[in-house]
Structures are given as structure tokens and as C-alpha cells.
């Protein structure tokens, strides 16, 4: 648990500097823990693994988009746990499920167990991306899917370099919103 916190925090600090490998390792490790957490919580309600996977992906996306709110002077685990718990409560509330049926404990058990049996979530990112404005779609595709540099993406999409960055950020934010709409019907 403590070594895990130390390792995760080191990954987070490197990922805040823009280190892609650390960012990937961080999101992978957190997704394992989040999966175990959400499966356990949703099992109480008789909900399936696909919905747990929805929440895993939503939370991974939230961690990515909100990583600037992590204060390096604090521990990482409680920060992740607070996001995971917030997303769970929001999910339960908007699907009209009783909050009391699920034990929303205060302890940091989100970091206790890993679960690598990943499932498919109920939404398709490629489909959702088609609903984004053209600039956002093009910027995300170029930089995030095709791995082009920001400068190359700017030429391809006919945007400035800062325009590409803004479009990626806004696009991911819009995708997060679309995903939460899809999973809260």
C-alpha cells in the first residue's frame, strides 16, 4: 500500500511533466484498481461488469482531464479515491439507484485490489467522436490516434499549434460529457 502510493505518486509527478510512458503506466495501474473498486460496488446492486467498465473509463478520463488539480504536496491515493467516489455517487444518483444500498466507505480501499479482467464498456469512443465539431475531431485524431506532433496536426487540420492544443483539450472534455450522458440513461 505505501510502496504503491510512492510508486503511483512518482508516476504522477513524471506524467505532469508530460512524460508519456509514465502517464500510460499511471493510467494502466489506476484502471486496474478502479476496476476492482467499481465491480465490488456495483455487484451489490446486481449491475454488470460493462457498467463497471463504463465507470472505470469515465474516471480514467476524469483523472486525465483534472490532473492539474493534483497538489504534489499531498498524497496521490486520496485524490484518486475522491474522484472515483465522486463518479460513483454521480452515477448512482443519475441512474436513480439508492445511495444507501452501496457502502460508500471512507477508507481508501480503492487502492487495495487490482482487477485485470477488463471488459468492453457500453459506449464506442469512435462513434462519440463523430459528434464532435470538425476541429476537435481532426486534432484528436491526428495527435492522439495517429501520433502526429502538434505542428504536423496543425498543418493537417488547418489550425494554429495552440488551436490544436485547445481543440484537443475541449474535445476530450466534450467526450467526457458525452460519455457521462451515454451511461446515465
Amino acid at each position: 500500500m505505501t510502496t504503491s502510493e510512492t510508486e503511483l505518486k512518482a508516476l504522477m509527478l513524471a506524467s505532469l511533466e508530460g512524460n508519456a510512458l509514465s502517464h500510460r503506466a499511471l493510467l494502466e495501474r489506476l484502471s486496474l484498481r478502479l476496476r476492482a473498486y467499481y465491480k465490488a460496488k456495483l455487484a451489490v446492486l446486481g449491475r454488470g461488469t460493462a457498467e463497471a467498465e463504463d465507470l472505470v473509463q469515465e474516471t480514467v478520463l476524469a483523472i486525465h482531464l483534472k490532473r492539474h488539480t493534483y497538489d504534489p504536496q499531498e498524497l496521490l491515493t486520496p485524490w484518486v479515491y475522491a474522484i472515483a467516489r465522486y463518479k460513483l455517487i454521480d452515477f448512482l444518483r443519475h441512474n436513480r439507484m439508492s445511495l444507501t444500498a452501496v457502502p460508500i466507505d471512507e477508507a481508501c480501499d480503492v487502492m487495495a485490489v487490482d482487477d485485470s479482467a477488463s471488459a468492453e464498456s457500453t459506449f464506442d469512443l469512435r462513434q462519440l467522436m463523430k459528434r464532435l465539431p470538425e476541429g476537435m475531431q481532426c486534432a484528436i485524431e491526428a495527435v492522439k490516434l495517429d501520433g502526429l506532433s502538434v505542428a504536423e496536426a496543425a498543418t493537417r487540420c488547418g489550425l494554429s499549434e495552440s488551436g490544436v492544443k485547445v481543440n484537443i483539450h475541449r474535445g476530450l472534455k466534450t467526450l467526457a460529457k458525452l460519455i457521462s450522458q451515454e451511461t446515465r440513461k
Partner: protein
Amino acid sequence: MKTDDLITLLSTNPEPVDRKAVARTFWVAFAAGLIAAIGLALGGLGFRTDFMTTRALAFLAVKFTFAIGIVGLAMVYLARLARPGGEQRISPILVVLPFLVIVALAAVSLGAAPRSYWDKMIIGEEWLECLLSIPIIAIVPFAISIWAVRQAAPTNLARAGAFAGLIAGGISAMAYALHCTDDSLPFIAVWYSGTIVLCTLAGALLGPRLLRW
């Protein structure tokens, strides 16, 4: 979709993150809110006419100190509340301190005055104007505060909304003080505190709807 695909997407060419982003957004919001509130107060109501008299300046200083105390404390707490899990590490009870001080001062000032003056000291000349102006002027700073909090990630939305409302009310009180000619401590304790608390309650009610992410 597979979670691995999402992680691949997110970790391809990630941007370095500006760690000071949250703090900077808050300062920008504070400055913008203050400018908007002062503009609204002076444009809509105007400066108090006796601005340069000693008595006016003394009471302006009291009202400013009260409002700045509230806004300062509330900003410290909101900066925490805006981060995930921040609500678990703070007890925002200190924020009632400016209110307690002004109520205590008001009580002393009432105690020192004859009973026949009490009505005038508490009700003042323009209590209705104060009651309406502070919440109305607070609307723009409130919207800006909510915008700033939305850039971060609060996990207790009612409390974050309440503190956004508290800051907006405090900023608005600062701006309204430039116009207000009711110079008595009981007036400040009742009408300034009351309207600021009103803004806080409105923020707490609106928070869950406005701050969801």
C-alpha cells in the same frame, strides 16, 4: 470500447501540465469579479457623496475589513474545496470569525447607545437598497467564481457552491460599501452579514447543478 484503447489515446503525446493553473484561475476570477462588482455599484448607484469626510472613510474601512476578511478566508477554503477530496482536509469553521466579530462590535455599539437610537442604528436609511443591491451585484462575481471552480474538480458540490456564493457576497459587499451611507455597526452586522449569508445559501443550492463534472 476497451479501456486500453482509451489509455493509449490519452497517453499519446500528453501535454505537460501547468501546476499553478488552479491558483492562477482563482486570482483572475477574483480580480475580474471585483472589477465587475465595483463597475456595477458605481455605474448603477454611484459613489457616496460625502466620500472624503473622516466618518465616511472610517466606516468604509470597517466595511472593507469585514468583507476582505470574509473573502480572504473563503478563498483559502475554496482553493481546497475545488480539488478532489479537499473537503475532507478542512474544517471551514474559521470563516464565521468575521461575522462573530462584527456582531460583537455591533452589540457593544448598541450597548453604548440610548435605547431610543436602536431602531435607527439597526434599520438605517437604506436597508432595502442594501438588501437588494448586495445580492444583485453579487450575480456577476458569483458566475465568475463558479467558472473558476469548474476549471478545477470539486467533489463536494454544495459546499464548493456555498463558498463561491460567500466570496461573491463578500466582493459585492465591498463594492456596495463605496455607495452605502448607512454608517453604523449594527447596520453592517444585520444587513451586510445577512445578504452575504443569503448569497452563501444560494450558492449551496445552486452548486450541485452548476458544478457537476
